[in-house]
């Protein structure tokens, strides 16, 4: 679940959740880092945050940076790192501009400014550049969001990932699809998979198709449709979908094309039991829910998600809302989590030596976090074994903010009721 460097900047992005509201982030940034400097702290520990705060992913990047910052503010407000005499944490800030070489350069700058741990960077491409740098400079790097499996396959000692891997994401999709169809007692036979022809889209759909084939589920993929990122027109693709007579669509999309796809499915009157996203943006963002209104109803997506009931989320969300006027979303919540995990490791390490931080990161067992999933533990590759996805469905509700609901896993569900098969798009 990730994206790569941008040239055709357009829809080459992903936004797991962006909450509407246009408060200036300038206000938020004015509060950055102030407390740690003024209070004659015994000692400051610097953490480097690299996020894409400018460029096409600016909104996400700024949310993620704020997530990192608020976690650190929370720790500082509660006495800092006790094992080091109440040492305060300070977030030093970097901007990747969505470019690997810039991300690397910024990470190097932050290390130069004294950062003992790095956190970030939302995109897998940038993550790879920083991961190698972290290994070169021997500084631990905790990835809050970045999903490509390969990043942790190199056996790097200094690299950890809080986010779910792309492989884990696909496995979740299949598990939930099975649960949903079995619970409904309805088994779609013909399926169409659509995906954007970019690293994320190709990788996801490839993995999904492979797992689906091996799953023994009674569904056959009768058509696979790929289209370039930033496409302006999907009418031909939807005509082909219609001709394939599918029962269900598995779309892997980005934000712009999901709108075009859905409108075109409506216009061309394509009969469907439902839309089930194996794990891509485009189907639950506030703008999407608002603009598409009834058309958006009943679509389901498997996605790493926030856990609104957790105390950690409620704390983080309150601070986030105050600072930015927006709600904590998946990305910013994972950013929040990443910084919390680092603080937890520092607390147990009682030292800022790389060796000690690495040791305590490996021993992490951290449950007080704001996202759907178990306690965070890292395996020998540095991946989080507790990472989980959720299945969310858009359900009718007068309040836009309440339409996106977790339906699986049961432990986290906000609605018991999974609506499948769904009414046709034009009969709502």
């Amino acid at each position, binding site marked *: 679940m990730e994206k790569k460097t941008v040239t*055709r*900047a*357009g*829809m080459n*992005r992903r936004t797991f959740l*962006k909450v509407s509201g*246009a408060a200036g982030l300038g206000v938020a940034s004015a509060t950055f880092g102030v407390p740690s400097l003024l209070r004659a702290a015994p000692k400051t520990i610097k953490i480097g945050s690299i996020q894409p705060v400018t460029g*096409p*992913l*600016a*909104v996400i990047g700024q949310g993620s940076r704020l997530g990192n910052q608020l976690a650190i503010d929370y720790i500082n407000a509660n006495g800092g790192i006790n094992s080091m005499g109440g040492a305060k944490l300070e977030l030093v800030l970097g901007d990747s501009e969505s470019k690997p070489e810039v991300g690397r350069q910024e990470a190097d700058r932050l290390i130069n400014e004294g950062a003992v741990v790095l956190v970030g960077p939302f995109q897998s491409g940038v993550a790879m550049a920083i991961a190698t740098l972290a290994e070169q400079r021997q500084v631990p790097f905790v990835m809050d969001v970045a999903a490509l499996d390969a990043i942790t396959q190199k056996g790097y000692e200094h690299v950890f990932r809080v986010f779910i891997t792309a492989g884990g994401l696909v496995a979740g999709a299949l598990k939930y699809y099975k649960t949903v169809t079995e619970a409904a007692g309805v088994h779609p036979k013909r399926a169409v998979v659509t995906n954007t022809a970019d690293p994320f889209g190709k990788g996801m759909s490839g993995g999904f198709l492979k797992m689906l084939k091996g799953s023994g589920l009674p569904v056959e993929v009768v058509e696979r449709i790929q289209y370039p990122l*930033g496409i*302006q*027109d999907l*009418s*031909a693709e939807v*005509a*082909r979908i*219609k*001709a394939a007579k599918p029962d269900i669509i598995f779309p892997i999309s980005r*934000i*712009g094309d999901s*709108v*075009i796809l859905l*409108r075109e499915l*409506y*216009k*061309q*009157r394509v009969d469907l039991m439902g839309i089930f996203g194996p794990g891509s943006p485009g189907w639950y963002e506030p*703008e999407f829910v608002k*603009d*598409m*209104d009834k058309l958006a109803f009943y679509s389901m997506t498997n996605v790493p998600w926030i856990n609104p009931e957790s105390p950690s989320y409620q704390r983080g969300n309150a601070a986030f809302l105050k600072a930015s006027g927006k709600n904590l979303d998946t990305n910013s919540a994972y950013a929040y989590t990443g910084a919390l995990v680092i603080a937890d490791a520092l607390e147990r390490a009682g030292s800022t030596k790389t060796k000690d931080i690495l040791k305590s990161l490996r021993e992490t067992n951290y449950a007080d976090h704001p996202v759907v999933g178990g306690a965070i533990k890292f395996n020998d590759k540095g991946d989080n074994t507790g990472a989980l996805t959720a299945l969310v469905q858009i359900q009718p509700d007068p309040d836009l903010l309440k339409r996106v609901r977790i339906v699986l896993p049961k432990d986290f569900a906000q609605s018991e009721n999974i609506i499948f098969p769904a009414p046709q798009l034009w009969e709502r």
Partner: protein
Amino acid sequence: MGMDSTLAVQLLIQGVLLGGVYGLIAIGLSLIFGVMGIINFAHGQMMVMGMYISYWIFVLLGIDPYISLVAVAAAIFILGWLIQYTVVNRILDYPEAMQVLPLVSIGLILENAALMLWGPDHRSPQTALGLDSMWVGPIMVDTSRLIAFVLAIIITFLIFIFLKKSNLGKCIRAASDNRTGAVLVGIDVDRIYNMSFAIGAATTGAAGCLLVPLLPISPHIGHDFTLTAFIVVILGGMGNLLGALVGGVILGVAE
């Protein structure tokens, strides 16, 4: 068999309808190239500006993009005139490498200005006819696409009449044929160039309006449309206006 031919007809109709709009975007590019020999690398970004203006008129005043089209075209006309007056007029005699850079920069500025003004969100307004479609037997005709096509053809036609009949249009054709000759017979070539760039801009702004009901708007889609227009113009022959329309339809169908 029946299924296949239905699909084929369906695709053909969709392609032709969209091709009309591509053609309209490309006509602006072609006009500018034909008159001044300049490739407007900011063309798609100018169109996106038009889309945003149209979007906000719709959101704030509730006026449908088809109606605000004239106002939007006028706004982009002014934008085009300003760009020509401040930048493009000064680089006409430069080598091509030097001509490319300012226009790419203008695109970069417009794109990031849109980002700063309106944020990176994808916006897809629910216009009145946005989701309507008509059915001819098993064939679906998208209403907003049909309107876009018809309006694109009308605008193209008007531009042709303008170039053929009006004094200004004749001057533009003269200046594009032979700059020195035009100067000699007393045509104010600078003014003609300003007008040509502005008209080229206005047509792409109008095309932007026609696309508002069809696809989500975000600051970064301009680049793709510059490329699209570029391909259309190459298909139809650089500087050839009718070719641009034909090229647009070809590309629309090919996609």
